[in-house]
């Protein structure tokens, strides 16, 4: 019973996702081609980056100039997340030898 319910829920989710991805125009802000593949609608910011990125940062790779220059705050967050994950792994997998020896005594 429970498995059948879960299966129905999963199929409903899959159906909704497939419907949206086949008919993307029905779910835009206005009924346009907001999700149509290959034709993004609002590209002003990206066109600005593509046309001025080389003059302003000097990098040929526009993605790098966005990651490290235009949107550097995102990269700070990413680096902090990586640092925190390493801290978490170190705390979870720390060596337990000493503490257990103390318990044995």
């Amino acid at each position, binding site marked *: 019973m429970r498995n059948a319910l*879960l299966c129905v829920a*999963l199929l409903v*989710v*899959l159906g909704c*996702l*497939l419907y*949206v*991805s*086949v008919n*993307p125009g029905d779910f835009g802000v206005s009924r346009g081609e907001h*999700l*149509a*593949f*290959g*034709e*993004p609608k609002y*590209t002003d*910011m*990206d066109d600005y*980056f*593509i046309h001025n*990125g*080389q003059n302003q940062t000097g990098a*040929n*790779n*526009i*993605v790098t100039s*966005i*990651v490290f220059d235009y*949107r550097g705050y*995102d*990269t700070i*967050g*990413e680096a902090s*997340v*990586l640092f*925190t*994950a*390493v801290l*978490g*792994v170190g705390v*979870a*997998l720390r060596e337990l030898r000493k503490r257990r020896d103390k318990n044995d005594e």
Partner: protein
Amino acid sequence: MMLLNLPYITVAILIAMGIYAMVYKRNLIKIVIGLSIVESAVNLFLVSLGYRRGGIAPIYTSAPSTYMVLPTPQALTLTSIVIGVATTAMLLSFCMVIYRNYGTLDSRKIRRLRE
């Protein structure tokens, strides 16, 4: 017309596969694998949102043209990949601790408190 949206259909199928693995499987490692599949699907969705038909990768080093795909979704996908790696590393290390303390990775059996 339907085949034009093939990346979105792939994303939908991948997300359904990941949710299936997270809901039905009892092994913690398989749950982590399902999470990674959903994460990859979201990355693919982000990148394919920024695709412009006929565009090239936004790199000017000996590029064949200057008509390029949108670079911002690619940069944010890079951030997302790094965060995914960090999350997966933490989840797997917790799985290792759980396996050491309980002797199993079955999520039904580790529900009880130990001793």
